[in-house]
């Protein structure tokens, strides 16, 4: 192309070129903004309400038609040719299977272009539902709609008889999970029972999506009070993208009786686990936890499993750390006599005088306090800058690089059923902190060694931490950690854990302990 052979392509060069390229491109659209466009005045009902009001008034005829098709099916004819239930499967391909009383497929319908590709030359008529589901999953894998990472599947069951629907729904989810396992694919499976709702019919029509997906989004919008725009954006996404949004924005997914979804319980917490919500997700998240652990063990077979090659001091303290943190490695507790839930720290991240604490469950705050002390018990000025539904940010001053500190947060409780109390965690400051402070924000540009391996997958930090706690069939209230970790005293396990925590940032390590 041109003469750039003298370039080494380091981060600074890349950043510099990107900057000047985008600068050259940035258009000036200011002149094209029409200031005479009237501004909307926001006083009345939210966009969501207006959306539904509009939808309710519209297109009842279409709704009735679809309702007949979806819910009751062809009433006439032989029992075996009568549609008893309709099962919707959405990944990005959206497919609807109509089955008779004996769960034999009467019709497989492709609802979008992707689905046509998946269904291409498959003849599923009169095939047993479980076999059909298996074939569909196989075809989706072959066509690349389900790959190794971050898949999401929505299963929707519609049957007039809600009990029958509940049974069928369970069966289908089991079939799908078996099939996923067979094809060595992991996915979050959301499942729901759909009732006939005209507003959902309308949504499905407006956005050209399946009834099941529309139903799911409709509930999501209702539950989380989302806007029309967000609904529109969601409708254009694949289930995988929707699942990611749900996880990242901490949206609630309804767990009601008419329809419930098994959400990634990273957000939902175990208390949410109603009989219907089946966290089939963990397969994926577990995978992600085990990965860094394995990598950590492999990388440094010696006792000091620490990706941060920066300092002997860290390694040294590290060796002594497991002894302290062993009992509950990454776990952090609030003492709670009522037997309520504990506040558990997912991970801690310290950078640039700012400590970020992320919890595993949603929490509530009441007069939060924080104290930060070093190993000798000396305390440092710290202030809570920001409290969120599952995290908080703390600014701390006067810390030295390469030193271990502990912090205690007070006035925090698990949102559902926990009593207010305190929680303690650990972190250490990066060795090269001073350098970093001098060089400003370019700190992250350096090669951080094992950094990215520690945080695998799309949502690395969060998932790596939560993975261990998402044991699928765990009843609410029990410590899932116990199941995942048979013996807390196992040395390698502890190291892997510690390593995993540190994976959130190469030079930071964090863990928690009960008070």
């Amino acid at each position: 192309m041109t003469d750039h052979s003298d370039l080494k392509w380091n981060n600074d060069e890349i950043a510099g070129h990107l900057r000047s390229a985008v600068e050259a491109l940035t258009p000036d659209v200011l002149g094209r903004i029409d200031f005479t466009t009237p501004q909307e005045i926001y006083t009345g009902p939210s966009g969501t309400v207006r959306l539904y009001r509009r939808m309710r008034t519209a297109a009842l005829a279409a709704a009735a038609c679809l309702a007949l098709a979806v819910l009751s099916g062809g009433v006439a004819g032989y029992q075996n040719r009568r549609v008893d239930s309709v099962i919707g499967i959405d990944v990005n391909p959206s497919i609807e299977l109509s089955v008779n009383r004996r769960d034999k497929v009467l019709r497989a319908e492709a609802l979008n272009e992707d689905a046509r590709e998946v269904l291409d030359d498959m003849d599923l008529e009169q095939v047993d539902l479980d076999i059909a589901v298996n074939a569909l999953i196989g075809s989706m894998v072959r066509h690349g709609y389900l790959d190794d990472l971050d898949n999401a599947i929505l299963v929707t069951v519609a049957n007039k008889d809600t009990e029958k629907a509940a049974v069928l729904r369970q069966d289908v989810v089991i079939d799908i999970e078996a099939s996923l396992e067979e094809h060595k694919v992991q996915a979050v499976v959301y499942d729901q029972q759909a009732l006939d709702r005209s507003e959902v019919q309308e949504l499905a029509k407006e956005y050209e999506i399946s009834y099941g997906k529309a139903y799911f989004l409709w509930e999501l919008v209702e539950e989380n009070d989302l806007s029309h725009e967000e609904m529109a954006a969601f409708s254009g996404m694949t289930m995988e993208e929707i699942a990611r949004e749900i996880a990242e924005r901490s949206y609630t997914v309804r767990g009601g009786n008419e329809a419930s979804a098994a959400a990634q319980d990273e957000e939902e917490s175990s208390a949410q686990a109603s009989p219907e919500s089946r966290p089939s997700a963990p397969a994926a998240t577990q995978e992600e936890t085990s990965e860094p652990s394995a990598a950590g063990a492999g990388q440094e077979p010696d006792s000091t499993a620490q990706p941060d090659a920066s300092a002997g001091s860290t390694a040294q303290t590290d060796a002594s750390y497991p002894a302290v943190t062993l009992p509950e490695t990454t776990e952090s507790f609030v003492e709670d006599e009522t037997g309520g839930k504990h506040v558990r720290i997912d991970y801690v991240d310290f950078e640039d005088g700012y400590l970020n604490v992320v919890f595993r469950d949603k929490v509530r705050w009441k007069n939060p306090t924080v104290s930060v002390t070093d190993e000798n018990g000396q305390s440092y000025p710290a202030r809570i800058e920001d409290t969120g539904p599952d995290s908080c940010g703390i600014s701390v001053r006067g810390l030295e690089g390469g030193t271990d500190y502990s912090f205690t947060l007070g006035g925090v409780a698990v949102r559902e059923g926990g009593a207010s109390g305190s929680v303690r965690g650990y972190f250490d400051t990066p060795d090269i902190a001073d350098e970093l402070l001098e060089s400003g924000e370019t700190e992250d540009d350096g090669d951080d060694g094992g950094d990215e391996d520690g945080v695998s997958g799309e949502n690395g930090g969060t998932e790596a931490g939560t993975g261990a706690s998402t044991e699928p069939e765990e009843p609410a209230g029990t410590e899932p950690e116990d199941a995942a970790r048979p013996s807390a005293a196992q040395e390698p396990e502890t190291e892997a854990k510690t390593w995993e925590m540190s994976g959130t940032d190469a030079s930071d390590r964090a863990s928690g302990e009960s008070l």
Partner: protein
Amino acid sequence: MFLMGILTALDEPAAYDRMSDEKLLLLVAKGDQEAFLRLYHNTDKTIYGFILSIMRSPQDAEEVMQETYLKVWISAGSYKSQGKPLAWMFTIARNLCYMKFRDQKHEADIGLSDLSEMETGEFCPQIEDAADKLVLRAALYILGEEERQIVLLHTTAGMKHREIAAALQLPLPTVLSKYNRAMKKLQKHLREEEGH
């Protein structure tokens, strides 16, 4: 009187200079065009970088950018003050991007891959520097969407990783690791490209 007039005239722009985007946005909600201009100049590169990272096509990005600022003007009143004006603007931009994708899908079945191939020949003629062009092309076509967002926001808009994490509502460690991974990918790609 005259003096006071001069004083206020001098005072006004300076006041806008010092205002946070949040404050500007609240003024925009009241129909203040001056505040809008200021907000535009404060954010245009960031918003453009963000939109480009989603749309990948500079033409589309320009259209969406115009729509975004118009929407900001129209809907400023719906902004709920919570100290995150940029995150709010990103949401608007993102939604408009996705709508654009939907429209394009309706108009013709041109996949993204086709689009990228179409542009291989003359990618961004506005950019004169060949190396700039090469790097931007690589960033837009070999990185995933989130990676593109993070890389472009950090390098071109000068946003800190923490700010990016807040604006994209991602955990900071995720942003850090994605950024590092993306930069490594770019390095590898560019070095290989050079080898050929």
